[in-house]
């Protein structure tokens, strides 16, 4: 196997952009129509993920020791898509056909042999990891919705009970899917682990979000949903040591932070915690009863609500971080930020400008980090899984 030749040929193919995954999936679906129903109707995000993962694999193809961990996680994770061993050759065929199509006259027998060998290796590692993972985790957990509350036009708070215990750490995210939709979204449980194993999920229906819309508008108590192994280590309380905390949240980004507050309460360390909860308008504080209850139960917790938009001053928007920095100097504390990508990047930028160093500011990765190099670090801590920073809008 000639690594340089593989990389060179991939860079030629990758130059064709979105055409490449488009061709790959069309070939796969035409040759194996039964695989189509494993994917969502809208394939746009899926194509990005395929190219990201392939690019990562090809660029590390000569550093097998680094690649193996990535592929093992990938293989274990793919169990939640009901991928079985017989699907791997089908994918290999479609991949070779795609490469051949885009390389045209540059496609040689040697290249075909290289790619076939490389793919064979990748598939073998993934299949073995998937099999090994069976001994540790189920491919997915079936969970029953035991409470479903619509808290706002587009926000629901769900309590779900997995059939088997799903262990997680506050701040982590778990995969959530509805049997009728073929895609997964990541949501953070809004509670510290409970004795009865139930999880609280805060879901905002994203425009066009198949999973989120189904969870908010199309499910009820008694329905069954699917959960996948927890991922993410960036919002873990351990990274803050024993220092006092400043928590900045917006929208359903409150969920993982609520779990952190419960964890602080459980550890009994009595560190000082200041929470700033942001929303566009007052009606969007969907969990204020619970927040007020926490604030009145724990003297170490101080809560400030920040209403972003003011009808008297249209165009201006006050974020949680703006109010917090106006209120005081928190540089001795660790800061946890969770919200939409815009909210998080604004907060991180503002904090950096105010002299906060990167080591004390904790937040999830922004946007799509599926199956790229960052996915590996996110998955490492939890063993298996993938992550998306997009769950908290």
């Amino acid at each position: 196997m000639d690594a340089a030749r593989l990389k060179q040929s991939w860079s030629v193919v990758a130059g064709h952009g979105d055409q490449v995954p488009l061709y790959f999936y069309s070939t796969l679906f035409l040759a194996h129509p039964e695989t189509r129903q494993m994917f969502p109707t809208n394939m746009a995000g899926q194509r990005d993920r395929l190219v990201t993962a392939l690019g990562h694999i090809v660029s590390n193809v000569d550093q097998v020791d680094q690649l193996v961990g990535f592929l093992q996680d990938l293989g274990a994770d793919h169990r939640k898509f009901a991928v079985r061993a017989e699907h791997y050759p089908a994918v290999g065929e479609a991949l070779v056909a795609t490469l051949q199509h885009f390389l045209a006259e540059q496609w040689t027998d040697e290249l075909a042999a290289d790619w076939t060998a490389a793919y064979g290796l990748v598939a073998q590692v993934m299949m073995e990891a998937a099999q090994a993972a069976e001994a540790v985790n189920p491919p997915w957990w079936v969970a029953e919705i035991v409470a479903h509350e619509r808290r706002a036009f587009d926000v629901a708070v769900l309590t779900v009970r997995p059939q088997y215990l799903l262990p997680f750490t506050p701040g982590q995210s778990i995969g959530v899917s509805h049997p009728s939709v073929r895609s997964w979204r990541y949501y953070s449980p809004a509670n510290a682990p409970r004795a009865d194993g139930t999880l609280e999920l805060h879901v905002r229906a994203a425009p066009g979000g198949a999973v989120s819309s189904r969870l908010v508008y199309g499910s009820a108590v008694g329905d069954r949903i699917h959960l996948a192994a927890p991922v993410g280590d960036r919002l873990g309380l351990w990274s803050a040591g024993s220092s006092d905390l400043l928590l900045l949240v917006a929208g359903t980004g409150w969920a993982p932070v609520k779990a952190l507050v419960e964890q602080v309460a459980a550890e009994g360390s009595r560190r000082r915690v200041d929470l700033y909860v942001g929303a566009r308008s007052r009606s969007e504080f969907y969990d204020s009863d619970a927040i007020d209850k926490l604030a009145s139960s724990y003297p170490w917790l101080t809560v400030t609500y920040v209403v972003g938009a003011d009808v008297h001053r249209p165009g201006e928007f006050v974020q949680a971080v703006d109010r917090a920095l106006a209120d005081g100097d928190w540089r001795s504390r660790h800061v946890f930020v969770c919200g939409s990508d815009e909210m998080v990047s604004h907060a991180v930028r503002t904090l950096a400008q105010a002299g906060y160093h990167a080591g004390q500011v904790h937040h999830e990765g922004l946007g799509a980090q599926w199956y790229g190099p960052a996915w590996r670090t996110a998955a490492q801590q939890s063993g298996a899984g993938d992550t998306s920073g997009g769950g908290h809008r």
Partner: protein
Amino acid sequence: MSATPISRYDGVQVSGGVQVRMTADRVRRWEFGAASFARRGYDNADVDRFRVQVADELDLLATQIATLRAENERLTDRVELHRHGVIPSTGAAAKVPAAREVNLLSAAQREAEQIIAQAHDYARRVAEYARVQYESYLHAAEAEAKQEAERAVAEYRSAAGSSFDDTVATREALRIFGEMMVSHMQAAARHLDDGSEQLARTMDRIAAETPGAPFVGGVVGQSALPRHQQR
């Protein structure tokens, strides 16, 4: 069945040239040569029974073949449909689909995604419009209620003269403000109920027009959620 034309059934086997297929009719009409007087010939009864049996067997086989061929064609069509949607395949020799087919499917996928994206964008705009409407309505209602409350306080002030009581004024202002807001909200709720009923009717109509559209059906059930379940 037995579609093969029988050109000759005079009992003479056609040799050489075109091989005439054996059919039930040919067997039935087959004439065995007469046995010589010197030797015992075939038992005619046995031959007749054999002929009937062979004919029946051939009839059965012909029927089965016709049925299987029809079934085979139906299944092939089904496979074609599954593989290519409405696209008829050309030369199923290669296992890997041809680039032309692949590109056609890719174009269809792209177009579907564009339609989905447009629908999502439209939904997002509608939701944003509704939110702005809601906020401006609330704002206007609040301003009007406040104005009413202030006027009531001013009236009370001029009427009460020296017996003016701050707590009475505040209570009166709050009462009027509250009443105004409640009546505004009730009007808004009536308005929303009308809209929601209209929406439900539209959704029912759509669901009836597109049978087997599960998501539409699911949404209809949920969209009828009474507002008091929301906060």
